[in-house]
């Protein structure tokens, strides 16, 4: 069972929900938390699992043999990402823009291009009892997060429960995080911003044919358009967690898993029951 926790808008409580759920599931089955918010990975700040393995994520980029290159410019014309520019007959590679498609390598008539690995980030992992953690970290200054997300998702493929903490937004990093999951849980703030962005991710999940459930979090007021939408689309509403200054304080201290379990146990039981029912089917 692969469950992605997403939201569109940032700061709605994805990490709080995914780490708390992962902890609770781990009391019953071996459970994996995969942190796919590789631009800003935060889940292990709360899980506090000792990291025992780290490896680099590499992508392939072109390296040009200047002696063999005739400066014909075919590589530049083939590259759709402007990652190779030929200046005065000499190709210059801009590694951050490269998507590692291999086009330049294939097109070069002189076989002057070879592909060499380049490190763009790392994946770290470890476990405590039945709770396994793997998280990706994008290096500073890098543009493209998806190769790291894809690597993180290869961790612990056979575990019974895998919970994916997805990044905010609705474009490529989110699509890569959501793809292949059995369920998407949307953590939604009942505000105009929270609602607007949750609909974007709901549409992404729909286009990937993944069913959704909703957790309303940090509710100051009942924002009617959100609840009308949930009803109209017939999305299961699993839990509602009120606005609570003590949640913010627990997040400040890094103790929000303990706090959520002790204060909002009913909500988390409901979420767990919903997921276990799906697993049984």
């Amino acid at each position, binding site marked *: 069972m692969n469950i992605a926790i997403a939201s569109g808008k*940032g*700061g709605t409580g994805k990490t709080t929900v995914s780490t708390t759920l992962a902890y609770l599931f781990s009391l019953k089955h071996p459970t994996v938390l995969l942190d796919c918010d590789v631009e*800003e990975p935060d889940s292990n700040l709360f899980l506090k699992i000792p990291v025992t393995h780290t490896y680099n994520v590499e992508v392939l980029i072109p390296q040009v043999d200047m002696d063999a290159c005739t400066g014909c410019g075919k590589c530049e014309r083939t590259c759709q*990402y402007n990652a190779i520019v030929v200046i005065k007959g000499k190709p210059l590679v801009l590694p951050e823009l490269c998507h590692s498609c291999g086009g330049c390598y294939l097109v070069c008539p002189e076989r002057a291009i070879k592909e060499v690995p380049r490190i763009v980030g790392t994946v770290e992992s470890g476990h405590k009892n039945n709770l396994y953690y793997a998280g990706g970290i994008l290096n*500073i200054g890098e543009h493209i997060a998806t190769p790291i997300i894809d690597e993180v998702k290869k961790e612990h493929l056979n575990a019974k429960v895998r919970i994916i903490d997805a990044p905010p937004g*609705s474009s490529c990093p989110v699509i890569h995080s959501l793809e292949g999951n059995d369920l998407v849980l949307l953590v939604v703030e009942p505000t105009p911003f929270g609602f607007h962005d949750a609909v974007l991710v709901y549409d992404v999940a729909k286009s990937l044919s993944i069913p959704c459930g909703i957790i309303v979090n940090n509710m100051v007021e009942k924002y009617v358009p959100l609840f009308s939408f949930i009803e109209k689309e017939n999305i299961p509403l699993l839990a509602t967690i009120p*606005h609570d200054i003590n949640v913010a304080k627990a997040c400040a201290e890094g103790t929000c898993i303990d706090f959520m379990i002790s204060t909002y146990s009913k909500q988390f039981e409901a979420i767990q029951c919903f997921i276990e029912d799906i697993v049984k089917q």
Partner: protein
Amino acid sequence: MKSTIQQLSIVSGKGGTGKTSIAASFAKLSSKRILVDCDVDASNLHIVMHPEILEEIPFVGQKKAIISQDRCRGCGDCVIYCRFNAIKDFYVVDPLLCEGCAVCAMMCPYEAVDMVDHLSGTIAVARADSQPFLFAKMGIAESNSGKLVDEIRQRAMKIAQAEGYNLIIIDGPPGIGCPVIASITGTTHVLIVTEPTISGMHDLERIIEVTQHFKIPTSVCINKCDISESNTQAIHSLCNAYGVEVIGKIPLDTDFVKAQIAGKTIIEFSNGKASKAIQSLWTKIENKLI
């Protein structure tokens, strides 16, 4: 010639720290500005700015491959060469996974692959409070947000030059990857909005490293500063160590949410503690930009 057009970009690393509320407030407080929503994956500014849309421009971010079923002879070379696993049996391109590299088109022995312009979204050129406001609408499950950010910023710059605006306020996305880099490169000043939580602090350090990597003058504002005195103090120390100024502090205030639900900026909605803190923050930011 040095450009006299100032560009202020508001980013955060961690999401949900208050970037958009602050950007919208700044737009209300500044007398003459262009406002640009560069959080194109999850744009929200239009919700409180009530724009009057003048023009919607289609954005073709890339081409995508389409395999002609008439010309395809089923050799499967495209599957072998595609690095993005975008070609499914037998033989159809999944547009969600296609990154438009055109390697399949290049390698197909039967020229059965067409690269077709792909509409990734639209750019809305609008007016809010009689001043230019640009935002984008990405299509569902689209990629290329960095390119869209580049495009929308270029359009804003052209309007600034043509209509004599000296200030562009950019509401940026969360994170540190491609749309963030596209939202901060070449700007005059970056304002990072953080919060005193352990994740806020962790993400703050990463985004400061990004702005320093690209050598952009940066200052920090701490939102919800009263949820943890000790962490707020720790953010001061962290910023000190990086040589970055903490330029403002905003207390936790449910007026943010109430204003949003009323469809207003917090500046219009109330004159409470957060509203006042943003007004004094704006005065300091304006001085940075002169």
